[in-house]
């Protein structure tokens, strides 16, 4: 019997990507919540190099790095595919391109959470530019980045649907609005309506509490550093 374990840490969007992939494909798995301030021996054994989540363990063999895990899941459980078929290598390349794009842009999103004042304004501006590229060039006229169905790139963008609203609220900014980004707002709605996704979204109130605490801690520690 196949044994699939997923090590994650709520509410990490990287962990959620893998949860969504497994759920969309109906793969049974055991989820193990990690306390990142007190990493388990198992996690350190399975991901000695980065010591991070998510880690997928399949029949005892570990795989780390979320996009590497997603490719592994796609190859191992080909039902309900997350990539276009091999007949369409360009479509597959496009999915990988947009996955890499959002991964490379993690910092401005993180800065929205971690900063205030001028730095926050700068981060908001950068995020707005990123969303513009996603709206016009990534999504275009499509419902999903993957086309008619949720695909790999949609899962990578999932944080925009799941946690971004809470981050915006805490930062006191409204970047993702329906006037500037009708396509993305429609995408958020459709993404969250998917039955497998809907059942596996982090609770917004719990996220608010979690990220509020994190934001205060991060802003305070950055202020403390600037006085050194």
């Amino acid at each position, binding site marked *: 019997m196949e044994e699939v374990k997923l090590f994650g840490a709520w509410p990490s969007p990287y962990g959620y990507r893998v949860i969504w992939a497994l759920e969309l494909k109906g793969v049974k798995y055991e989820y193990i919540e990690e306390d990142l301030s007190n990493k388990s021996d198992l996690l350190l054994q399975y991901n000695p190099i980065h010591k991070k989540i998510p880690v997928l363990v399949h029949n005892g063999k570990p795989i780390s790095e979320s996009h590497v895990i997603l*490719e*592994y899941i796609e190859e191992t459980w080909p039902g309900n595919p997350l990539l276009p078929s*091999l007949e369409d290598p*360009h479509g*597959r*390349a496009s999915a990988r*391109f947009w996955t890499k794009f959002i991964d490379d842009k993690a910092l401005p999103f993180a800065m929205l959470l971690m900063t205030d004042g001028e730095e926050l304004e700068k981060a908001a501006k950068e995020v707005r530019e990123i969303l513009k590229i996603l709206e016009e060039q990534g999504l275009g006229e499509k419902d999903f980045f993957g086309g008619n169905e949720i695909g790999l790139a949609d899962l990578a963008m999932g944080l925009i649907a799941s946690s971004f609203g809470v981050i915006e609220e805490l930062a006191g900014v409204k970047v993702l609005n329906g006037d500037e980004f009708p396509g993305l707002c429609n995408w958020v709605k459709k993404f969250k309506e998917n039955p497998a996704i809907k059942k596996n979204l982090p609770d917004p109130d719990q996220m608010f509490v979690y990220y509020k605490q994190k934001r205060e801690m991060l802003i305070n520690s950055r202020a403390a550093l600037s006085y050194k």
Partner: protein
Amino acid sequence: MAQVTLLGAWPSPFVYRVIWALKLKGVDYEYVEEDILYNKSERLLKYNPVHKMVPVLVHAGKPIAESAVILEYIEETWPQNPLLPKDPHGRALARFWTKFGEDKNPALFGFLRTEGEQQVKATKEGQEQLRILEEQGLGDKKFFGGDEIGMADLEFGWLAWWLEVWSEITGVTLIEAESFPRLHAWIQRFKEFPTIKETLPDRSAMLTHYKGYKGLRTPYLALAKS
């Protein structure tokens, strides 16, 4: 117009990665040199509007950008002489190490961008990552890909050729043979591999190029995420 066109900028290691993949698989292509510093062509801006960078592969008129994405495309489109193993776990490992290379570019290239004490620190940090690569990435294998050159070998190909040139210019040696015997042996194997050996940029031309007024701060190093 050729079926396969590669937009590149000499002597970018990111571009060479793609050239090696095409050559290893025996794929015919047309190479087009882009002036990415001063005069990006309309064609480049059309084919890579998001990043406006090389390499870009154009196949039957459709563009693919980002060297890692291009390598996956090449692997799927021309499956001969595979760059990835068949088994999903082996493929995951190859992709893991490829990503490790991408993520650690800033640490590995750090010695190029610093001087004095900063450079000593940056060199040490780079060597810490190389230690992981030596012991856990390469181990006792002939290549990162096992017995044959694979995707991860192409990711680290710059260590086998560009590093020597940069070391000569900066006076910093990142990989000493005694400290990194496996990586050192891999370097010799990689650059002697026939297809690779025929496809390396001329060393003295590289020295001139990297010593030039922009020197080691040329964009395709600074934008090491391409």
